[in-house]
């Protein structure tokens, strides 16, 4: 407890998110707006899920702890499904916005591509989800106290921080895959994303048995990352080219009539 734990956990949980924000989002006003709007959509989905959970709790027997736990599981599942539903709704909104932007622009092309929007929306869901999950825990970690004095795990803070980092990455990857799947109508990919979200949320139910929850979650994160990388157009060739810092041969053709270089996505 204290400043060490607070700063350590904050940087573990939000370091990647903050760096991604600074390097990729903060420079472009449009992306910042997409980020904030994505956070808003996630909040609305959380609100609806909380309403459902709240109503179910109030209609049920408060004393029965097994029932309450079951309702919590139910609430978490509903929340996951609603988050994905709102991700779909955000996809629809961004598609419309993309068309609008393309109309308004001078050269008929939108200043931001759908893939970039997918990434930013995924990041926004990840950041707001991570923040909502862990900010109160971080605030408590500044104060005095002993973790796990009643027999709970003493690793609560650090595992929460690592779980949050995983959640941020997962949402980013899910965003990329989801938008691409919606765009190309690959419904199996959609179902897989929703299923992996449910599995991830379900794995956290195994806490505090951290070996069973953290390790599989990170395996899922890495595999989602690889999948998102290939979905976004990455390939081994790209990675090698990037690492070797070679200048690619430019074999694009200059179109003189419009004085424009065809823009690659």
């Amino acid at each position, binding site marked *: 407890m204290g400043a060490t734990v607070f700063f350590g956990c904050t940087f573990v949980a939000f370091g990647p998110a903050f760096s991604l924000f600074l390097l990729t989002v903060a*420079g*472009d*006003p*449009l992306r*910042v*707006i*997409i980020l*904030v*709007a994505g956070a*808003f959509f996630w*909040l609305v989905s*959380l*609100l609806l*899920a*909380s*309403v459902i*959970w*709240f109503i179910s709790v109030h209609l049920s027997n408060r004393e029965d702890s097994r029932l309450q*736990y079951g309702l*919590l599981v139910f*609430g*978490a599942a509903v929340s*996951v499904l609603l*988050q994905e539903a709102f991700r779909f709704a955000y996809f629809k*909104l961004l598609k*419309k*916005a993309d*068309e*609008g*932007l393309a*109309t*308004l*622009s*001078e*050269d008929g092309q*939108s*200043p*931001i591509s759908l893939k970039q929007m997918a990434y930013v929306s995924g990041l926004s869901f990840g950041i*707001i*989800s991570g*923040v*909502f*999950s862990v*900010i*109160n*825990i971080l*605030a408590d970690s500044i104060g005095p106290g002993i973790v796990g004095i009643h027999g709970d795990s003493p690793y*609560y803070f650090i*595992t*929460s921080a690592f*779980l*949050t980092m995983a*959640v941020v990455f997962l949402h980013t990857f899910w965003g990329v895959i989801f938008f691409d799947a919606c765009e190309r109508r690959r419904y199996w990919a959609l179902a897989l994303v929703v299923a992996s979200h449910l599995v*991830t*949320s379900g794995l*956290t*139910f195994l*806490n*505090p048995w951290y070996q069973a929850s953290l390790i599989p979650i990170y395996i899922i994160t890495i595999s989602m990352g690889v999948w998102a990388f290939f979905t976004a157009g990455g390939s081994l060739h790209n990675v090698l080219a990037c690492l070797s810092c070679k200048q690619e041969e430019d074999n694009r053709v200059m179109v003189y009539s419009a*004085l424009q270089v065809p823009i690659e996505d």
Partner: protein
Amino acid sequence: MITFMNSSDSEEEACNERTSLISAESPPAASYQDGLQAPEAAETQTYRKRRSDGSCSPSDADGGNSDSGLPVRDIAVDNKEEEELTLKYGAKHVIMLFVPVTLCMIVVIATIKSVRFYTEKNGQLIYTPFSEDTPSVGQRLLNSVLNTIIMISVIVVMTVFLVVLYKYRCYKFIHGWLILSSLMLLFLFTYIYLGEVLKTYNVAMDYPTLFFVIWNFGAVGMICIHWKGPLHLQQAYLIMISALMALVFIKYLPEWSAWVILGAISIYDLIAVLCPRGPLRMLVETAQERNEPIFPALIYSSAMVWTVGMAKQDTASRDLTQQTWDSAEDVREIHENPAYVESEIFEARSPAPTHPTTSLLEELEEEERGVKLGLGDFIFYSVLVGKAAATASGDWNTTLACFVAILIGLCLTLLLLAVFKKALPALPISITFGLVFYFSTDNLVRPFMDTLASHQLYI
């Protein structure tokens, strides 16, 4: 109020933050395609307007342009291009307002969470005389409604008084009033704030140092706000006085009254700006008729402008609007006229330059593209978020939810501004979202998230 400036300032402006010391950048050359597109502009203008109305989104076509001005085409199709440019520059303006609103809220939240003084109950303002320490819920509700009625009527009276003064050109009185209120904010409230912060962190400061610090802070603030100063410094001072005012409101408004007042003032804002006989609308129209900007002391301006070339004589005849005005101060012990907080969004009518003889390269007149937001908006947004931080049982989720809600409301309002191009109130959408999110997050989401966190479950 949010004002959207499309025209550069006239030269007769004596004191205007836009003539202040800003580093000039060389304006970018006219884009080659602009001239090519000019002939089709007339036909496509209405088409684009309809399209843009239909498919407009919060994100505007601003592909990360870092320039702050665009040469205006001097052809008759300026209206269409101005619409396009308005919408194009929308994303950048949204961010130019997100940043100060966020900074103000961060200052207020940081103070509320650390300095105990602003969450202690130490009496109430004279404008909210009814106490909320009553046993029954109904009585408490009634008292808060009565407090709200008194507060809103005070604000209405003062706004009408201000409009009357403005109409009858009593500029000296208004100037004096504004100077007095900013003096109060910059010296007295800063002194109290600094004292409380020093007490919280147990730092000792001797009176000479204190006098030196407060004197410099206040004097530079007065100069920046009422006269000339670097734009960023002026913006920083406006943010600071908004935060100070919001902190005063958070401290002295009782709980339920604060929420009811927030709701009532957004309704009042809606009425005052949009109704034909609304005081703020009359104010704006009077200012537009007279071609004057309203006092820059109470508006946050995000724009930078400079004019090059032939712009001045044409734009001098144009309307410059903006205003929002907000000044609010409530001091218990001193009986002064309280100023009020009004918030509106305004947009200046953009001038359509009509000098067809200039060639494409000569149209290097810079147009100011900026948005202005009234300080009242800053204050009430910060009051909402600060109250959420102060009273939401130590929960950060509520504060963050209100913060996101306010930003989204601001974004939507700016979108409406780009579409409707007239004065719009800045409070209603943001405050509505903020209130909805506050109450729902505090009562519904918080138990859910707390229960999840206690089992270390992630959704």
